[in-house]
């Protein structure tokens, strides 16, 4: 077991009794339970963890949290690999295997570091200015750029893990379990409110975990857990704040367990939380200082250095230079010093720091260089020295430069309150010049910041603010520690140095890039972001954005509030797609609707088609049969004998009430006044724009009760449409609608033998045509089952639709199957109806077709108004050159035109062609022994007789325009 040379002998919130082995870039190391990957690497003296995105410069661990821009790793491999994790957020487990991303062969030696030599040639936005030769030449360069870009690698197989979503409601959601959040949750909990406290870390404690006086948070947490009305969620980052206090949080359920994760648990859980009010105790994020070569491994945020030494008992260095423009880094210096790190100097950009901890540092004998700055660093894969110089009052360099040897630079450029969620809530921000920070101002939602996220940086103020926010009391502003007006970027000694002052570490955006953008007119902060890519990395600019826009403001001579910030967008921390999808994948992606007869269809080899959510039998191939053969057999059976089809998916709506008839008159184009009980009628429904919406048969059950059918795909839409008219436009009509689609099953019995067959199955319905005519319905028993039988036809043959309770469907089907009948699927139905020239919604119609286009003017009642009628009178609807329905007969009867084929009036002469229409339906008709097609063609049957040309991939087919009623045009077979 490897020693951990930089681990302190004692202290820290780690479990030394549980050593954990892990590997990084193929080398084996050991850490302890309670470590993050970052702290374990530091304990082993590994600072160089990756390379930067653009210049491939060596980079080390900058932070100890979610703001980390540099330490991006790939975890695991294969299907369970995880790209782009932040080493500072990965909890260590036994067997963890991580690699650096975007460098080859590794971070120690990376071939792509040649980019660094071209540094000067490729400033921000360089790609907009070149790669334009030769003409359209971008595709020559792009593959190289794509290969260079991207961080980690996607998994190579389906996700082996599960995810789930959880809905939760609470009175108070407290985000963050630092001192403010703990106080808020406690206060809210004591008031009796239902509280959820969520913290991204584990254990809770927030910044207390990283400070020397760690401890008190444990008690607070225990107190909360004792309250029944408080739910504490650890490892749960609240990451999105949406409208009406709806927030999402991601709980890492088993990520920290690695291969030891129990199989019954999801990897992650997405919480969907609706909160009465929200207390955002999200803390603050420390900013880096911007000086030349501020990115060398070993350069770290001061607060992070402090956290590593206190929480993880890791020495991030042996000899440190602490550089700061504010008081907070003094505490870090003292903690490092206390644990044996030699403090080479505290370099303070301010002329003099005067906080209590400054005094303590002085007392401890630390070397404080006020009015100085680190202006450059030395070293390559690890910082070797800080170059320090004195600053003039105006921020320019003065005097000589001295090199302070060190292996750690702990820097602090001040703190940015984590206002991300507040801003996501729609809240506005205000810039506080004294704090040098954007603070929450007003949110349109019940959201409130407390503690460091509100600009209160000392623990006592945090607790006070948290308590007030949790209890819903007005808060008193805490004491403000004004920040000194020092410059946001330290000048460098050379232009080369100035070009290496990094602001956004991940995307390699430098102060010079920002100045260049401003020079070129990209003055809006949004332009800056987009032109330089500032803040667009996986850290979303959590550390670099504020210094970046401050440098922009300085360059433009504007104040920071005049420049403003970019919008904070969800998520605060990235969320796995799988976690967002939850269980709505695979078999649960969308409900499958099956008819009561589905099992029979399946057992008898049906091929299914998806129609909306329904599975419908497409055809029933017998052994060795192709689709065409099966469909032909099914069609001929219906034409010559009898077939049965499961039509249960058709929508069925019961329309009742004293005004039902009037309602039908308004929503259908035809009249319903004369429809007597026992009779049915075909109806056509239009949108108010005059376009055909749906069709179907409606039966009059009794004077005030009608049963309406819709097409399968439109059932829900039509029901909703009818309800909408009733409720919103015609509340005066007394009509009640009930969907019966799933309550009843429908079997269509069609063919010349069907009358005889029906007669054999029923004792109380007389099928004789004079007593049971076409377009009538009867009630009785079929195969002993209570049934309604509708004599309607979509095939042109004598046909009955037998409707029984869904539960009786299999008995009915079985009874029918004892006779000579052939089950047929939807494709045979399509062919049979096309032979008759019957319209199919969604095939002959596409939302742009009127009844006139379909030559169904006879369906339009002239004596009443109906939905869509007025639209049919518009000028464009009366154009004789609109596309209208025709039949098409190919010259060669064996040629079946593809559906969707376009139609030309003349033989093709070269694109663009003038298209006059398209084939809407096309089949091989076994009945007619030739192909048939329906089409919508400009001018319609005014062109008949006439020839049109249908260009296919390899040839052009000639076809004759004809009557779409190909078979039995007089309709004699209907009465058979």
């Amino acid at each position, binding site marked *: 077991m490897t020693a951990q040379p930089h681990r302190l002998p004692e202290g820290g919130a780690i479990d030394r009794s549980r050593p954990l082995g892990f590997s990084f870039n193929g080398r084996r190391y050991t850490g302890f339970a309670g470590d993050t990957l970052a702290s374990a690497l530091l304990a082993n003296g590994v600072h160089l963890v990756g390379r930067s995105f653009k210049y491939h410069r060596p980079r080390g661990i900058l932070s100890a949290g979610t703001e980390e821009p540099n330490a991006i790793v790939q975890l695991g491999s294969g299907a369970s690999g995880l790209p782009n994790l932040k080493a500072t957020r990965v909890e260590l487990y036994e067997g963890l295997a991580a690699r650096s991303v975007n460098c080859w062969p590794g971070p120690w030696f990376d071939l792509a570091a040649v980019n660094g030599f071209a540094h000067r040639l490729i400033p921000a936005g360089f790609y907009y200015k070149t790669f334009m030769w030769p003409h359209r030449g971008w595709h020559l360069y792009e593959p190289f750029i794509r290969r260079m870009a991207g961080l980690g690698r996607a998994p190579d197989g389906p996700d082996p893990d599960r995810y789930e979503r959880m809905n939760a409601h609470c009175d108070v959601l407290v985000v963050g379990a630092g001192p403010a959040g703990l106080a808020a949750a406690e206060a809210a909990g004591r008031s009796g409110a239902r509280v959820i406290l969520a913290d991204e870390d584990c254990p809770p404690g927030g910044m207390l975990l990283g400070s020397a006086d760690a401890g008190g948070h444990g008690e607070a947490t225990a107190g909360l857990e004792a309250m029944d009305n408080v739910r504490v969620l650890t490892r749960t980052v609240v990451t999105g704040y*949406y*409208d*009406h*206090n*709806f927030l999402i949080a991601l709980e890492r359920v088993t990520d920290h367990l690695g291969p030891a994760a129990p199989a019954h648990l999801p990897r992650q859980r997405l919480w*969907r939380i*609706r909160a009465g009010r929200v207390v955002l105790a999200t803390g603050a994020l420390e900013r880096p200082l911007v000086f030349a070569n501020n990115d060398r491994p070993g350069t770290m945020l001061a607060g992070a250095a402090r956290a590593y030494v206190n929480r993880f008992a890791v020495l991030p260095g042996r000899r440190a230079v602490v550089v700061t423009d504010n008081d907070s880094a003094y505490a870090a210096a003292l903690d490092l010093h206390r644990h044996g790190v030699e403090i080479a100097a505290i370099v303070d950009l301010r002329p003099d720091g005067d906080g209590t901890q400054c005094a303590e540092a002085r007392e401890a004998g630390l070397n404080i260089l006020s009015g100085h700055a680190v202006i450059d660093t030395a070293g390559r894969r690890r910082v070797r020295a800080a170059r320090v110089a004195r600053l003039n009052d105006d921020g320019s360099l003065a005097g000589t430069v001295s090199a302070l040897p060190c292996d750690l630079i702990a820097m602090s450029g001040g703190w940015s309150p984590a206002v991300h969620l507040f801003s996501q809530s*729609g809240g506005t921000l205000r810039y506080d010049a004294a704090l040098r920070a954007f603070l929450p101002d007003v949110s*349109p939602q019940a959201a409130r910041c407390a503690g460091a996220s509100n600009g209160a940086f000392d623990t006592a103020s945090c607790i006070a603010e948290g308590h007030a926010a949790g209890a819903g009391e007005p808060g008193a502003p805490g004491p403000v520690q004004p920040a000194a007006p020092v410059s946001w970027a330290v000048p460098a000694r050379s232009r080369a140095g100035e070009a290496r002052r990094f602001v956004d570490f991940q995307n390699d955006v430098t102060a010079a890039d920002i100045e260049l953008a401003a020079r070129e007119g990209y003055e809006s902060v949004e332009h800056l972001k987009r032109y330089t890519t500032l803040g667009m990395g996986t850290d979303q600019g959590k550390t670099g954005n504020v210094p970046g826009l401050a440098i922009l403001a300085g360059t433009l001579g504007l104040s920071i509030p005049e420049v403003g910030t970019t919008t904070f967008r969800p998520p605060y921390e990235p969320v796995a797609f799988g976690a967002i999808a939850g269980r709505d994948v695979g078999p649960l992606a969308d409900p499958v609707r099956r008819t009561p007869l589905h099992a029979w269809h399946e057992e008898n080899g049906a091929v299914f088609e998806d129609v909306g959510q329904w599975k419908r039998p497409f055809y029933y191939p017998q052994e060795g049969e192709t689709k065409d053969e099966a469909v032909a057999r099914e069609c001929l059976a219906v034409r010559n004998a009898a077939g049965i089809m499961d039509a249960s998916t058709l929508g069925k709506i019961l329309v009742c009430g004293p005004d039902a008839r009037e309602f039908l008159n308004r929503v259908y184009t035809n009249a319903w006044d004369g429809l007597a009980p026992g009779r049915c009628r075909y109806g056509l429904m239009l949108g*108010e*724009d005059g376009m055909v919406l749906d069709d179907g048969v409606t039966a009059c059950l009794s004077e005030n009760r009608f049963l309406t059918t819709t097409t399968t795909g439109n059932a829900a839409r039509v029901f*909703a449409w009818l*309800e*909408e008219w009733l*409720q*919103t*436009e015609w*509340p005066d009509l007394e009509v009640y609608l009930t969907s019966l689609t799933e309550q009843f099953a429908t079997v269509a019995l069609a063919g010349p033998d069907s009358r005889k067959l029906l007669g054999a199955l029923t004792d109380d319905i007389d099928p004789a045509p004079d007593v049971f005519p076409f377009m009538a319905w009867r009630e009785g028993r079929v195969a002993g089952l209570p049934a309604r039988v509708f004599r309607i036809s979509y095939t042109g043959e004598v046909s009955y639709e037998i409707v029984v309770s869904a539960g009786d469907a299999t008995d009915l089907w079985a009874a029918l199957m004892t006779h000579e009948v052939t089950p047929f699927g939807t494709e045979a139905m399509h062919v049979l109806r096309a032979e008759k020239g019957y319209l199919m919604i969604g095939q002959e119609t596409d939302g742009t077709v009127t009844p006139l286009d379909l030559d169904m003017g006879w369906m339009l009642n002239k004596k009443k*108004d109906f939905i869509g*009628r*007025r*639209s049919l*009178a*518009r*000028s464009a609807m009366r154009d004789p050159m609109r596309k209208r329905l025709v039949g098409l007969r190919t010259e060669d009867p064996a040629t079946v035109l593809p559906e969707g084929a376009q139609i030309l009036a003349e033989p093709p002469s070269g694109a663009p062609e003038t298209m006059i229409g398209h084939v809407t339906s096309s089949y091989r008709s076994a009945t007619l022994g030739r192909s048939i097609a329906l089409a919508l063609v400009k001018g319609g049957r005014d062109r008949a007789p006439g020839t049109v040309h249908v260009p296919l991939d390899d040839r052009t087919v000639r076809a004759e325009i004809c009557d779409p009623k190909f078979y039995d045009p007089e309709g004699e077979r209907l009465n058979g």
Partner: protein
Amino acid sequence: MLLIPCPWCGERDESEFACGGEAHIARPPDPDALNDAEWADYLFMRTNPKGSQRERWCHTHGCGRWFNVERDTVTHRILSVYRMGEPPPKDAP
């Protein structure tokens, strides 16, 4: 995800509802009396205000009832909710 107070069921998630667009567009009693432009105004033209809008919602996956909502299209704040046939509250905040 809006939280919509259905006047029949109380507050429910937006995912239970469907929005039906601008409210109080009455179907002309005599469509034939309108010219094409006037008919197009009824059919297609919408106020689409930036700010307070009265619109229709249906509690599709709940009680199935249509009702009116007055909502700010910028902040998404719901200013008032009233049933079909009820007059809109005057000068809602």
